[in-house]
């Protein structure tokens, strides 16, 4: 399969900390790729670099043949890369459906926004359809700030989806979510993937990753350690050594699953 999103030899330091040190990652079109690694291994920094929130010191990021290394987040989103955040970021003081409407147009000029109403009928229908998909349509007129943490995760997923991006980056979609909701989220991801969406998922919940991902990349100390199928990664001694095998990380994992 061809790589839709690709980061090559990316480095990024914050002061003396090398968050990324020559890390490479590729996400194949139509795949669900997992990105795992111990806390502080650079997973979220890689997400931030790929979505334009952080500029890399070195290396390149390309998406569908476009170089997006130093592009702004709005441009990257316009090209078709949507993302969620580890700590959910919603627009708390506007309604749930207005949250959706913010994202309905991926690439609309700011001048057009001045002259049009906040939604067309088709945009509103699409917003309600995706809210229905994540089970939040009955809360559409509620202020988004009144949603629970799990509902906020679903809303964030829904407003990324309404923009119809080609690739969706999910930062810990199962983090802090109960088991029933984790199963729901994984089912929705699999359903969307069947529909042609490509996913890159950062997650500490190994069961979740191993269940839904086609390919997994393991990061360690800012570098890509191993890439392979879930079974290959699980069996790799280097991975066990760096991540899965250490008692500290087991504790982290258990904590995340139970959260």
């Amino acid at each position, binding site marked *: 399969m061809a790589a839709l999103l690709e980061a090559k030899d990316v480095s990024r330091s914050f002061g003396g900390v090398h968050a990324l040190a020559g890390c490479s990652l590729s996400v194949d079109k139509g795949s669900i790729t997992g990105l795992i690694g111990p806390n502080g291994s650079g997973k979220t920094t890689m997400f931030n670099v790929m979505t334009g929130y952080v500029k890399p010191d070195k290396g390149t990021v390309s998406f569908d043949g476009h170089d997006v290394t130093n592009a702004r987040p*709005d441009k990257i989103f316009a090209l078709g890369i949507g993302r969620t955040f580890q700590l959910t*970021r919603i*627009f708390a*003081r*506007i309604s749930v459906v207005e949250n959706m409407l913010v994202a309905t147009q991926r690439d609309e000029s700011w001048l057009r*926004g001045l002259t049009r*109403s906040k939604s067309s009928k088709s945009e509103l229908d699409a917003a309600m359809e995706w809210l229905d998909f994540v089970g939040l349509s009955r809360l559409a007129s509620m202020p988004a700030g009144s949603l629970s943490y799990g509902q906020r995760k679903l809303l964030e997923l829904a407003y*990324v989806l309404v*923009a119809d991006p080609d690739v969706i980056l999910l930062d810990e979609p199962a983090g802090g979510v109960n088991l029933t909701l984790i199963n729901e989220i994984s089912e929705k991801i699999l359903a969307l993937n069947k529909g042609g969406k490509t996913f890159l998922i950062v997650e500490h919940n190994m069961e979740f990753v191993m269940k839904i991902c086609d390919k997994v990349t393991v990061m360690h100390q800012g570098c890509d350690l191993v890439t392979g199928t879930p079974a290959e990664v699980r069996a790799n001694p280097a991975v066990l050594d760096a991540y899965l095998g250490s008692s500290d990380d087991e504790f982290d994992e258990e904590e995340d699953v139970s959260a």
Partner: protein
Amino acid sequence: MSKAKPTAWGLGLAVLILFPIIETNPAWTSIGVLTLMFMACTTSWNMFSGYSGYVSLGSAIFFGSGAYTMALVSTHAHMAGGAALFWLIPLAGLVAMVIAVPVGAIALRVRRHTFVVITIALFFVFQLLAINASFTGGAAGIYIPLIPWGASYYNVPFYYVALGMVIFATLLSAAVRRSRFGLQLLAIRDDEDRALGLGVRVTAVKLTGFTMSAFTFGMAGALYCMLQGQIYPQFVFDPTFDITVALMAFLGGFGTLLGPLLGGLILEASQQYLTQSFSNGSLYLILFGVLFLLVILFMPQGIVVAVSQWWNGRAQRRELKATRDPAAVGAHT
């Protein structure tokens, strides 16, 4: 409720239209003009700061620029004092907008408290410029062509022009709230970086809002200059103007449509009344201080939000009572 809202707005407008006809005392109509001017300014301020969360304390830059546009153009063009000067008001608004572009481009590079500080700093740059530049007449100010209207009638044209500004600012603010642009400003208020990641061109949206907001300030400054017949830098580039406008919006209801109108109406009318009623011109400042302490402590979101929450709570309590009562009756029988 759907009919009550337009009726209330229509009633409010009718009262404002009829006010100078019913109350012809120039002392009262003068209060009316200044109150409407502040209502327009606060509504316009809220259209950017209230929606985007970027609290600007530099609005007097645009008010002062508008006032100087009126003064400089009318004197240099040797215009005759009279109604023709009103035509300069939209021009003053446009000049304020032009000035707002570089001011906004500088100030909007930063966020939150830093933005507030930068707007204050830029305000003082303009105040010092007005005091020291030769073309502004310096501290001596500028006298504009004398308007030969009778004292009893003098305020009335200003009143209706100011009312026009209030209607303009309110309609514009309502239109912005209904537009995608307005939604983007609200998204920026709640989480600017997230909005950026969802395709909102945050820099362009913020600068557009900031510039649009300056238009009414420029017009209000020009009207004020015309009303006074003369301007001094310290009166049109006045730091208390910046604070007053912001406080009016906070008192009425930050980010709401009605709140800034209400805040402007209550504060400016009471300030003018107190100033005229008591020889001690600074008494109102003490009363304002007390009022704001009370508002911050008991209604931090402003009058409109507090009243609306109380009203909704009352309706919910009634509904709850209505659903409980039959059950209670059933239990007894």
